């Protein structure tokens, strides 16, 4: 099925509106707007009727696959179901109808929600305070690293310009570090999936600002030496940064603060069930230990004399990192989630997420190579290297999963596992779904043995078949060009 662009659907003169005759004097646009800002030709807008527009976008929406359609095991992305009560709460008139420029006294309820969410997230992570401003995970990382840098500068340790990051880290970690001017040093993962403390000890020096760590790592494994790792970093004056991408595995069981982390960022659009990806926007709060609170972005929400207020009087603050106070409606959804789950509920979320991942891993490990044979946390990494020897790649198998109606897992990440497939089923899938997914994957493994060409040509049942990914990267067509321009 080929989907035409809306530009290709219309005909000149078709329109979806019918406006009454203008009953005030008309002034020409050139009288109002300076000539330099006027365009010389009409814009190429689609010319369609209302029903054409509705059918076009409805058809597109039906091609979408989201967590409301089915299983979505994208590892380290925590594509969990987003409870609809979150939407109800964020749409309450007192939240959705306010203007961010209103005075504190007019938005006490909104400020209270921010303040409470700040403290709830601090409690969950073992931090002292949290800023809800950053708009996404990588933005939280950047803010957190700016706090780290501000702390070292305050201590007259400007020479700390290096940051240690494991080879399993998300690509955003080194990117954020580079953005604040840090030099990245990679630390290797050992055969059990941990950081090697001996190697870390060698890398530490007075030039190291800190260590960025995701725990559990992107291998879905808990860092077994975390206490020792924290001591090594702190002993040489460095700080520990916690990438909260995988917090879904440990809520109510352990806390980054208790492991020795100083700075944490979270992804509300992962762990706290707000919409993720195209359904965003996101929210990447950053939390810190008590000593680092003065560096948090302003405004900080405070509760003083029975009033909630936005506090800009923080001389050591790294400043404001987002207009107004971040993506407020997303925070409201996360607050609704935390309050509807409760402390026990969140603990159950993590326990079930870990159970689901282990259940699926154990069903699959006889059929795919499992590089790290350990109890996994909320996600696990398989390798398609056995299948690759038969000429079928992980990409082929991922495409084949789509034929069976499921979203593929994260593939080719983490980089240290060949032909990697990273599955994160999340806590919201029931056993029947996990059984069905396992059955499909085992069937695909059998197809690789019996009819590899079938898998290599997948997908067949999607609206569009196998794309030429190389051509798409090398010669992308990024905008529509009117056909007559081609003839000119």
């Amino acid at each position: 099925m080929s989907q035409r662009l809306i530009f290709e659907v219309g005909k000149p003169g078709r329109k979806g509106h019918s406006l009454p005759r203008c009953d005030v004097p008309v002034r020409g646009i050139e009288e109002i707007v300076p000539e330099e800002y006027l365009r010389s030709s009409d814009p190429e807008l689609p010319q369609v009727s209302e029903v054409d527009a509705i059918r076009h976008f409805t058809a597109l929406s039906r091609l979408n696959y989201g967590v409301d359609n089915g299983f979505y095991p994208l590892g380290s992305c925590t594509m969990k179901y987003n409870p609809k009560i979150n939407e109800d709460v964020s749409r309450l008139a007192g939240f959705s109808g306010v203007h961010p420029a209103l005075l504190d006294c007019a938005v006490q309820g909104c400020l209270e929600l921010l303040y409470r969410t700040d403290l709830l997230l601090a409690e969950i992570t073992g931090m002292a305070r949290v800023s809800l401003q950053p708009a996404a995970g990588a933005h939280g990382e950047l803010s957190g690293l700016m706090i780290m840098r501000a702390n070292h500068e305050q201590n007259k340790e400007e020479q700390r310009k290096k940051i240690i990051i494991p080879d399993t880290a998300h690509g955003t970690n080194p990117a954020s570090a580079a953005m604040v001017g840090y030099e990245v040093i990679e630390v290797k993962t050992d055969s059990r999936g941990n950081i090697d403390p001996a190697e870390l000890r060698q890398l530490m020096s007075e030039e190291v600002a800190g260590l960025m760590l995701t725990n559990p790592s992107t291998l879905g494994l808990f860092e077994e030496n975390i206490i020792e790792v924290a001591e090594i970093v702190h002993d040489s004056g460095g700080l520990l940064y916690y990438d909260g991408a995988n917090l879904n595995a440990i809520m109510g069981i352990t806390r980054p603060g208790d492991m020795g982390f100083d700075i944490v960022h979270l992804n509300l659009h992962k762990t706290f069930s707000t919409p993720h990806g195209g359904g965003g926007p996101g929210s990447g709060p950053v939390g810190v230990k008590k000593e680092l609170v003065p560096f948090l972005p302003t405004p900080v929400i405070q509760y003083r004399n029975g009033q909630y207020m936005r506090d800009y009087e923080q001389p050591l603050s790294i400043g404001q990192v987002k207009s107004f106070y971040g993506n407020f409606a997303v925070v409201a959804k996360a607050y609704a989630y935390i309050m509807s789950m409760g402390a026990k509920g969140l603990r159950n979320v993590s326990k079930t997420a870990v159970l689901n991942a282990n259940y699926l891993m154990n069903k699959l490990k006889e059929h795919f190579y499992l590089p790290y044979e350990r109890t996994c946390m909320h996600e696990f990494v398989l390798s398609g290297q056995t299948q690759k020897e038969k000429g079928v790649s992980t990409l082929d198998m991922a495409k084949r999963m789509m034929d069976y109606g499921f979203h593929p897992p994260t593939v080719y990440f983490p980089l240290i596992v060949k032909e990697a497939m990273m599955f994160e089923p999340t806590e919201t899938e029931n056993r029947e779904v996990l059984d069905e997914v396992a059955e499909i994957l085992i069937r695909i493994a059998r197809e690789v043995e019996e009819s590899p060409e079938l898998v290599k040509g997948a997908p067949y049942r999607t609206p569009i078949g196998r794309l030429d990914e190389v051509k798409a990267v090398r010669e992308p067509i990024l905008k529509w060009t009117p056909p007559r321009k081609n003839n000119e």
Partner: protein
Amino acid sequence: MRTPEGLKYTKEHEWVRMEEDLVYIGITDYAQDSLGDIVFIELPAEGDVLASGQTMGVVESVKAASDIYMPLSGKVKKVNNALLDNPESVNENPYDSWMIAIEPTDASELEALLNQDEYKKLCAKED
């Protein structure tokens, strides 16, 4: 996987060929096979002086972006800019697709690199 004789190799999967006074550097067959279809290449500029182990460029495939490291220290004398428009030639002929040629600071650094046998063993271990 091809691992020609007479070349030197690195643990990071670069190959090195001495030709007259210059050392030609590229990435191995193993490297291109693991990366998959290469779509972008970034190389240093002529005249850059880079130390052994420093990043000299980037290869990006549909799967991942990887740094290319200097196998030995030296000054960049020639850059194979033709590769930038035809990155697929690295997939097709990795050993003909040299990326840069350098004038080594200390030619004895070549001795420390892996020979054909050692590199083959390394690849077998990584598989």
